[in-house]
Each structure stands twice: as structure tokens, then as C-alpha cells.
């Protein structure tokens, strides 16, 4: 069977890809998608550890992470729509002032 560290390595790679996306991309939607990748990497870790320890707690925490991700996506996308309405751009460098 597959050892636990294989799952952890896959999860680490996915998390690093998500981090790179947040740091490198200049498109708000892609940045939010990268955050989703990171959340999913953590979910994989939770489920793998839960299976390895023989409990269902990891799956329950994953369920909570999913609901938080849904809330985060809803609020984040609403903010993106509001920002786009003001500046007609999705580049985060455009939004440099707190008040206008």
C-alpha cells in the first residue's frame, strides 16, 4: 500500500504551487484560485493523517475547511466585483489607494 509520506509530498507540492501562484500572478481571480489550491493541499494532508491514525476526525476537519473555503470564495469574489466596478481592472497593482 501507499505510505503516508507519499501523500504528504503530493500535498506539499500542491501547497507550494498555490503559494507560487499567490506570489507571482497579477490577476485577482487567479490569486483566489491559488488560495483554493492551497486549501485543497491542506485537506489532503488532513484526510491522509486521519486515515493513517485510523480516525474520522481528519474528514470532519476537511468538511469545515470546505465550508470556510466556500465562504471565502463568496466574499472574495464579491470584493473582486466591487473593485472591478471601480477600476475596470483585475491587476492588484491598480488598487493602490485606500480611499478615492
Amino acid at each position, binding site marked *: 500500500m501507499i505510505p503516508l509520506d507519499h501523500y504528504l509530498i503530493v500535498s506539499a507540492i500542491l501547497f507550494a504551487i498555490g503559494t507560487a501562484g499567490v506570489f507571482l500572478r497579477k490577476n485577482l*481571480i487567479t490569486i483566489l484560485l491559488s488560495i483554493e489550491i492551497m486549501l485543497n493541499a491542506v485537506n489532503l494532508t488532513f484526510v491522509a493523517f486521519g*486515515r493513517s491514525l485510523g480516525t474520522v476526525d481528519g474528514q470532519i476537519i476537511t468538511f469545515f475547511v470546505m465550508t470556510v473555503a466556500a465562504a471565502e470564495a463568496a466574499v472574495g469574489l464579491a470584493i473582486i466585483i466591487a473593485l472591478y466596478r471601480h477600476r475596470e481592472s483585475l491587476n492588484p497593482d491598480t488598487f493602490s489607494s485606500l480611499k478615492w
Partner: protein
Amino acid sequence: MPDTLIFYALSGLAILASALVIGQRNPMYSVMLLIASFGALAGLYIQLDAPFVAVAQIVIYAGAIMVLFLFVVMLLNAPQEDAAEWDRTHPLRQGGVGRFGAMLALLLVVQLAWALMRANDVSDAVSSRGDVATVSSVREVGRGLFTDYMFAFEATSILILVAMVGAVVLARQERGQ
């Protein structure tokens, strides 16, 4: 043996799709690729004896959150960064902050690899402990959710209510503009 093959195929698909997500110019393709990545992850969850999480992954992530993203991408009608902008802001062509971000991401990879190498209790087979019937049972998940995690479960409903109200307030068209 087929288990191992399926594991490598699914994790390879997940990693490849995720890497392509952050390399796409058109957010529409990014969203589609991320759905593929989530599908592969759902397969991994099934391999980990977690059918509830696998179905929730498909229904909530691929079915709800990603459709929300698709709606916003289509609503904003700015699907493609133009080529000049892409060239100018391409991660590999900018110095300073962009390179610093790339370095931070690389540092994270090194740290994670180092931590995994140092951990010595993780090379057991993932299914060595626990009974498959217990771990994969949706009944056990529900029992945990409504006993040990009762407070967190109820707090989640308030979180979703607040997020819903917040999203409506933020995205509302302001009058008089």
C-alpha cells in the same frame, strides 16, 4: 500494485493541472483546469477510504465554488490579459518583488521537503492502522460532526450566514452612481 499506479496517475494529474492553473493567461481555462485537479483529488480521497469527503469535494468544490468562479469570470467579461500586459507582468521576466515571491515559494518547497525528510514516523502504509469499515463510514463522520464537533458545526452556519450577507452588501450596486 494497481493501487500504486492509480495513486501516481491521480497525484500526477492533480499536480499537473494545478501547475497549469497558475500558468494560464485566460482565467476561464484556469477554472476548468482547477476542476480537473479537484476531480483527481476526489479520486485520492476515495483511495484514502474517505468517500464522504470525495463526494463533498465534487459537489461543493467542483459543483458550487467553481461555478461561482465561472459566473464571476463571465460576468466581468475580462477573460484574457492582453499579450503586452502578460509579457510585462510575466513572473519570470520581472525583477525585484516577483523574484522575491518566487524565492519565497522555492524556500517553502525546500522547507517542506526538509521537514518530510526529518519526520521518521510517516513511512508506514497509510492504511496500517484503523478499520476500513470504521474510517470510511459516513455514519461515523456524522456522529463526530454532531457530538464532538457540535459547536464548530453550529458556528459554521453563522459563518455562512455572515459570508452571505457580506457578499450581498459588497457586490450590491450603489445607488446614485
